[in-house]
């Protein structure tokens, strides 16, 4: 993409300097916001995590004690933080595969047997992705109430439903369910894009050789879709690692912290004025996400 026209340029360096200036002018609006709201905050967060900011006026954060790794030590000793890491890991471990399986199955079905109404189905399955989470969480809260819709349905079968979101063992599944419901449409669309990139004749050759649907799925679709699968899993892992909206809105981390995620921990520490702890926890998050993203980068690069 280096389109360097050498046509009649006497002073290439000067011309290049000019072009660089023009290009950076184009980049200025984005660069300003990037510096102000990504670069500086990231560096500052690192600095914050090494200081004791309890009860500090954040407008003058430079006047505070530098405490080294104290916050991180406190983090490791904080049982609720360790619990939140486990909660988040659970969210990822259950949410990612579940979201992918549903998304993949729907993509395969929409891509094969279905010709009519495909667009409609795709749209319906994608609708949760664009829906406002606050609105949906309200519905969820209401549906999983002690005498909400879910328990009404269970009642029909003769089961007495619990108060889902007040039960430390049941709240998390409901929170995960909301996450999966919101995100499987993304997985579906990405898988669909991957499926459509597989050339038709591969399947035709296979079916001429007598391979049935299952064998085609196992020996053609799945291997050829591997890059997409990896990509979707990394994407969802990054999403779910940062889960905040669902637990905040449904349970605010409760009952008994059973649904508190790392992101929510960060928020709660922030709310409690523990800015140093909050920043330290968010730095842990940053490292986790960066690691997963690195994997993604490598995967992407190996594909090109």
């Amino acid at each position, binding site marked *: 993409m280096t389109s360097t026209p050498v046509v009649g340029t006497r002073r290439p360096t000067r011309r290049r300097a000019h072009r660089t200036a023009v290009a950076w002018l184009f980049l200025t609006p984005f660069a300003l*916001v990037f510096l102000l709201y990504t670069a500086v905050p990231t560096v500052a967060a690192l600095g914050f995590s090494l200081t004791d900011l309890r009860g500090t006026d954040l407008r003058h954060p430079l006047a505070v004690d530098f405490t080294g790794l104290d916050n991180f030590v406190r983090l490791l000793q904080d049982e609720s933080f360790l619990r939140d890491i486990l909660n988040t890991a659970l969210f990822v471990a259950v949410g990612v595969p579940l979201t992918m399986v549903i998304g993949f199955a729907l993509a395969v079905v929409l891509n094969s047997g279905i010709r009519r109404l495909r667009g409609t189905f795709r749209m319906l399955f994608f609708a949760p992705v664009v829906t406002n989470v606050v609105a949906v969480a309200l519905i969820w809260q209401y549906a999983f109430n002690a005498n909400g819709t879910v328990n009404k349905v269970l009642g029909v079968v003769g089961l007495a439903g619990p108060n889902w979101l007040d039960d430390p063992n049941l709240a998390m599944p409901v929170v995960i369910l909301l996450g999966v419901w919101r995100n499987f449409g993304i997985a579906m669309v990405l898988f669909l894009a991957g499926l459509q990139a597989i050339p038709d004749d591969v399947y035709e050759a296979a079916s001429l050789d007598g391979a049935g649907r299952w064998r085609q799925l196992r020996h053609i679709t799945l291997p050829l879709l591997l890059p997409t699968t990896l990509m979707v899993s990394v994407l969802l892992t990054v999403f779910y690692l940062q889960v905040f909206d669902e637990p905040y809105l449904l349970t605010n981390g409760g009952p008994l912290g059973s649904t508190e995620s790392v992101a929510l921990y960060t928020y709660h520490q922030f709310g409690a004025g523990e800015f140093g702890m909050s920043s330290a926890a968010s730095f842990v998050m940053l490292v986790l996400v960066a690691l997963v993203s690195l994997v993604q980068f490598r995967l992407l690069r190996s594909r090109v």
Partner: protein
Amino acid sequence: MTAVAALKSAETVTDRVAPRRRSVTGPLLYGALVLCALLTMLPFLWVISGSLRSLDEIRSDPGAWIPQHVTFDNFLRLFRTEGFGQFMVNSVVVAVMVVAGNIVAASAAGYALAKLDFAGKRLAFGAVMAAMMVPFTAVFVTQFVITVDLGLADTLTGIALPGVAMPLSVFIMRQYAMSIPDELLEAARIDGAGEFRIFFRIFLPLAGPAVATITIMSFLASWNNFIWPLIVAQSMSSYTLPVGLAATSQAAAHVTDYGLMLAGAIVVMLPVLLLFLFLQRYFVQGISGTGMR
């Protein structure tokens, strides 16, 4: 103009129909799909039915499905609720700022990254990619400090500002700009047109689909954004709809005015769902375009 036509058709190719293959077990698949679609749609259907029921009806039988008497009373009460009109105006104002900012920042940056050769290009693109990966929860504390320092806490500008230049938009715009043939711009350069002229006269008119995608994606991000407005907005006068709705519902949790909440949920969801209904191709493209290649 042929270039425009070529781009248009190239654009439809990305959304092409899947390869034709023999369809088997049709009815079974359709049945399964309809079932899945129904399950997916349940929350929507339920919130619609709930919002149309009277408060007494909801209280007496919260789990019921079919409204016995359809009423718009919840919506009327909602619009009379203090602050609600303000939340709506705030959401719209923030969304307009975010969308406008994204169009300006992303089309310029995307064009430069795709079509200009300059010192620091790799660095700039690396920054865009890195910005996409910084988790929000890792920076919101310091973002908040900066917002306070700028005197923008509890203002709509403060809510909108971090979102006015989304790296995702830059990325989408760059990918699109890459697909525009260099020859087109080169010809203009030889004719003596400056970069700004080329950008405004040649690139932007061609970038319609990308601008549409960015508009939709950034509107969506802004309209649905919850955690940042939750942090920045400190008084009701700067609440956006989601924050207002969450606050109202938390305040009302013990009063259980579910009718009001369900109507609120509809009003928050409706603009996006309508937009999505008409422009779903762009939504889907935006998502699949960012994940893939």
